[in-house]
């Protein structure tokens, strides 16, 4: 029994030892994990420190060798020798004897002066005491004592003054003994200190503790420990280009305006700022963390969090440019997107489309808009032939009862009319916006259809109506009303139809065919289903029934307002923070990465790819457009950003300040609406920046010149204004910018007797002016005008103005041609412009030469003589 127990207990001891050892190992494992395994930032910080040490050491070494090379070392050695010599001299017994004697004297005087001072204080105290008693008792003895004391005080003061003088003299006598040494020492210190400082910096950087670096912002509960690894991100110098040690790129824009101590890192970059245990976790590329880190241009998506307007924001160029895509494709027509509310203005009004286009064309277009022209903006809906016909039937039934085509390809055009039309076409600069056969369309700010095949699309009657008054057919169109006469329009129509007809188009319905009512019904359902009314105005259709009563009686009613839902697509206002679980990856769940960004991109690439029954059409976006749009959408989050971070846009600021946004008034507003000046020009913040800003046109331009120019627009700038300053034009020669001839001045503005040119000039002079630009420039009386002009010309040549500006045939082509500037600009404008060109145009390339007022007067006077009077 005993032995049995003994055996058993011994094997239990082994078990005990075995498990104890295991537990010990586990404990060691835990400690190792906690010290190293889970703390990768320690390694990084140490590496960074050694890199920094290396760099500082190098700097120090270099400074040292420079010091040696530059001859400073010799100077130093010489100074040190001098110092030694001076010290030796000072220490020599002879000098020392004198020095000691003098300093002994000084010490004696100093001591007695101190004693004297003490005595003075004692006496003064007594005096005050006596004075107190005297005022209290008015006894004469006190008065007597006071006088006595006063005498004594005076004596002591005099003695003190003498002593002080003596002391100072002695001290001054002492100075020459040591001053030489002190000077040399200061010199040496001055030479050595930059080196010492460098050496000290090595020491301080070595002493920086290895620890978690954290930024904590309480109100948004942000704790970013990114800098524990990215230790050099905010440094003043690049220590290494290797990650994670680099500095923040363009930190003079990003970090300077967004202090990491106040914004952290994840505020813009997302990722999991708290994580310190692995790169994947910190960068948020792990399960259960839905905000992966943003890099590169993609980070600009975060600008949208706070900046109400990214249009002219430095560092936000990518997102600003991508935001334009939202407008271009009209995403807001179907989706709710913050800041975009309008509905139904991307595509043209379709109410009377049956009177405009060929039925065969409409089918072709509905099947795939890019069949008609490659830059078509309308997306592909993947309609079947049958569906396309139903939709076309519905649209045509709003203004008629038949499917009908016209075919001009067999007609012989009137050559004379065509020739006249061609001249008008080029005078009106139609190609500025419209592309024909691959040419034109320079004003990319305006989307205008490619007209290469328009003769197979529309009929002449409609085209006539359209050119005569575009607003009548499509209120709010970008197309200007040119002041053509009816004859001119006829010629233009003839030219367009004969020149731009697709010979391959095969109209099927040259003999009209009656539309079937079932088809209309089906078409209506499809329109409701796919939400065509999102981009095209289809409202007020109930009344259209009157045009085609026969169809209504067959039981078809047109779209009613309540059938048009507000927005057909998903709301996008917080798509950038939508939980991934709410995104339906459908059949692509396994084949693409299950994160929000991949979802958005894939949706844009193939909108109906996730599952059957999706309705979003395909815009055939390029990969870079997809990335851009995804970046914008990703920026729409519902994160509550505290108001102190918000940077409202100008409009928002104006709204807050109660400032009304600018509105054109009176007849000028009518002209703007008619001629669409703001398609190209920007006026008081409204409009595009394709042509010069006219906000100050009244101060800038001479009336006579405006009149002439409007009557007959000519080239001002030979180069594209928007040409990127450093970019390439892609091989195509920059086209000349010329304003279309609108034939202004021929007609009177409705209900008034004024010509529209008068209205424009009047408005310019009343509204588009600033007191900042004087009417006249200061006059110099000391020089004759001729001399002033000569001096101005001298300056013009001297400063190299001709390298950019052209006068006559001489000069460069970057700036505006100045041959006729004397007729064009007001002298006051030139005068102010020369002072600071950026004041009126912030992004101008013209350098600031820092002219004096006189020089500006000379130059202005010279420039005002440049006139082309022959014209």
């Amino acid at each position, binding site marked *: 029994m005993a032995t049995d*127990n003994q055996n*058993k*207990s011994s094997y*239990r001891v082994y*078990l*005990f030892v075995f*498990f*104890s050892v*295991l*537990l010990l190992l*586990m*404990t060691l*494992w*835990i400690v190792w*994990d906690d010290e190293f395994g889970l703390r990768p930032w320690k390694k990084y910080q140490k590496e960074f420190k050694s890199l920094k040490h290396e760099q500082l050491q190098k700097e120090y070494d270099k400074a040292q060798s420079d010091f040696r090379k530059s001859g400073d070392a010799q100077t130093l050695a010489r100074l040190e020798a001098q110092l030694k010599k001076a010290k030796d001299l000072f220490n020599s017994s002879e000098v020392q004897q004198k020095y000691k004697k003098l300093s002994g004297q000084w010490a004696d005087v100093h001591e007695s002066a101190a004693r004297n001072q003490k005595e003075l204080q004692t006496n003064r105290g007594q005096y005050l005491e006596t004075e107190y008693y005297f005022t209290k008792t008015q006894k004469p003895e006190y008065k007597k004592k006071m006088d006595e004391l006063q005498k004594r005080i005076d004596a002591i003061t005099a003695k003190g003054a003498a002593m002080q003088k003596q002391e100072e003299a002695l001290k001054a006598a002492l100075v020459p003994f040591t001053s030489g040494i002190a000077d040399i020492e200061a010199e040496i210190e001055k030479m050595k200190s930059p080196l010492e400082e460098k050496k000290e910096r090595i020491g301080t950087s070595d002493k920086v503790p290895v620890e978690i670096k954290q930024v904590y912002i309480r109100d948004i509960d942000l704790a970013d420990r990114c800098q524990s690894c990215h230790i050099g991100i905010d440094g003043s110098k690049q220590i290494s280009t290797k990650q994670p040690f680099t500095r923040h790129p363009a930190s003079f824009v990003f970090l300077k305006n967004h202090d990491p101590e106040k914004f952290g890192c994840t505020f813009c970059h997302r990722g999991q700022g708290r994580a310190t245990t692995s790169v994947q976790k910190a960068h948020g590329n792990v399960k*259960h*963390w*839905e905000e992966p880190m943003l890099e590169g241009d993609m980070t600009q998506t975060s600008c949208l969090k706070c900046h109400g307007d990214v249009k002219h924001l430095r560092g936000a160029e990518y997102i600003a440019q991508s935001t334009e895509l939202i407008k271009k494709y009209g995403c807001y027509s179907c989706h709710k997107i913050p800041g975009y509310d309008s509905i139904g203005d991307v595509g043209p009004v379709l109410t009377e489309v049956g009177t405009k286009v060929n039925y065969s064309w409409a089918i072709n277009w509905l099947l795939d808009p890019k069949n008609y022209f490659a830059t078509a903006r309308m997306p592909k809906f993947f309609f079947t032939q049958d569906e396309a016909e139903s939709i076309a039937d519905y649209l045509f039934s709003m203004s008629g009862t038949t499917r009908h085509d016209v075919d001009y390809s067999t007609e012989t055009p009137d050559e004379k009319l065509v020739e006249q039309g061609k001249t008008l076409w080029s005078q009106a600069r139609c190609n500025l916006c419209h592309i024909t056969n691959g040419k034109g369309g320079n004003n990319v700010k305006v989307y205008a259809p490619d007209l290469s095949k328009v003769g197979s699309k529309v009929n002449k009657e409609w085209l006539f109506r359209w050119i005569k008054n575009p607003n009548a057919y499509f209120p709010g169109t970008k197309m200007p009303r040119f002041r053509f006469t009816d004859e001119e329009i006829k010629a233009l129509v003839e030219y367009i139809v004969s020149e731009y007809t697709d010979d391959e188009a095969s109209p099927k319905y040259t003999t009209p065919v009656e539309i079937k009512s079932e088809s209309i019904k089906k078409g209506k359902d499809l329109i409701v289903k796919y939400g065509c009314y999102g981009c095209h105005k289809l409202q007020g259709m109930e009344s259209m029934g009157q045009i085609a009563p026969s169809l209504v009686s067959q039981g078809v009613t047109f779209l009613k307002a309540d059938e048009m839902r507000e927005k057909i697509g998903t709301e996008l206002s917080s798509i950038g923070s939508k*939980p991934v*679980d*709410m995104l*339906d990856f*459908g059949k692509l*769940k*396994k084949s693409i990465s299950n994160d929000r960004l991949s979802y958005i991109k894939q949706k844009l690439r193939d909108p109906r790819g996730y*599952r059957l029954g999706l309705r979003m059409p395909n815009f055939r976006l390029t990969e870079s457009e997809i990335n851009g749009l995804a970046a914008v959408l990703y920026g729409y989050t519902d994160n509550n950003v505290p108001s102190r971070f918000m940077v409202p846009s100008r409009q928002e600021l104006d709204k807050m300040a109660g400032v009304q946004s600018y509105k054109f008034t009176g007849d000028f507003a009518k002209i703007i609406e008619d001629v669409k000046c703001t398609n190209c020009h920007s006026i008081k913040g409204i409009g595009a920046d394709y042509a010069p800003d006219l906000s100050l046109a009244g101060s800038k331009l001479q009336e006579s010149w405006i009149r002439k120019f409007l009557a007959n627009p000519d080239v001002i700038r030979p180069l594209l204004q928007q040409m990127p300053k450093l970019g390439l034009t892609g091989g195509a020669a920059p086209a000349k910018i010329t304003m279309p001839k609108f034939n202004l001045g021929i007609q009177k503005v409705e209900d008034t007797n004024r010509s529209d040119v008068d209205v424009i000039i009047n408005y310019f002079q009343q509204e588009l002016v600033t007191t900042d630009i004087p009417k006249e420039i200061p006059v110099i009386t000391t020089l004759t005008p001729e001399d002033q002009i000569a001096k101005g010309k001298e300056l013009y040549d001297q400063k190299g103005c001709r390298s950019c500006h052209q006068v006559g045939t001489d000069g460069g082509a970057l700036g505006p041609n100045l041959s006729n500037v004397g007729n064009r600009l007001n002298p006051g404008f030139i005068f102010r412009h020369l002072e600071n060109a950026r004041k009126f145009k912030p992004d101008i390339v013209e350098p600031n030469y820092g002219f004096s007022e006189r020089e500006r007067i000379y130059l202005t006077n010279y420039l005002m003589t440049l006139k082309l009077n022959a014209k």
Partner: protein
Amino acid sequence: MNPFIEIITQPDNIAIVIMIMLVTFFTLWAFQQALDNDKLIAAGKPVDGENEGLVDTFKPLVRIELIIALAVMVFLTFWSIVVDAPLEEIANPTLTPNPAKAPWYFLGLQELLVYFDPWLAGVVLPTLIIVGLIAIPYIDINPRGNGYYSFEERKFAIVTFSFGFFILWLLLIVIGVFFRGPGWLWYWPWQEWDHARVVFEPTRDLSNVIGIDSRSLPGFIIGAILVNGYLVAGMVAPYKYLKKKMPDFLKQFGMIRYLVTTFLFITMMSIPIKMVLRLVFLIKYIWITPWFNV
């Protein structure tokens, strides 16, 4: 990844894998010892441990306790180093995960929700389970099999308990963890979870099968008869049987004990019955009343 491996390697589910392994191991061990003892009893020999003596607590017992503590500590530490506790996204009341699963030890109850209304599955049945478990010592009056593993001596007790423990508790947990996907639908381990999957939901009730609206009065009466009939028959039939075959036992057992036992037993058996009705015959309710449905 293979969906099965994906489910199994979820940190929380590793616990269930460990549970399955441990339970299997100890069940086999228990039944092996029970059968060994049964053989000894059949041979008229003393069972394991019957003739054993006493030992000092210090040190044999203390030592073994220490070793087990060490072993458990090693095991838990290893588990904790190798597997990290899960932490999902921050709670979001607007985003319901599909499926939303209870902690694994309650998945048996969640599974019952498929077959019973919440007031039964979530409240009444759990209460009865607790009450029933506490009542076991008072209704099991069999004096044998106390202090040793045996099967022959207490067949009824062990079979009933095992049914409840393995089938109604552990098996339902395993089903809940490994076989239930979005919408609490059944997924085999090799099947992909499909959030858009829709499966025919039986809405018919028992009386609808024979053509009577379950919400009408006749339906109500039929349901009431069936449910109450089940209760009454479940209590009366064994009584008759025992009275005939084992009158002595019944007398010794006593009326109250008999009633409690049969009530608990037929309640337990109602679970598999309801499961069969639901899964095989696609019947949702047996008895519909204005206040509750069974």
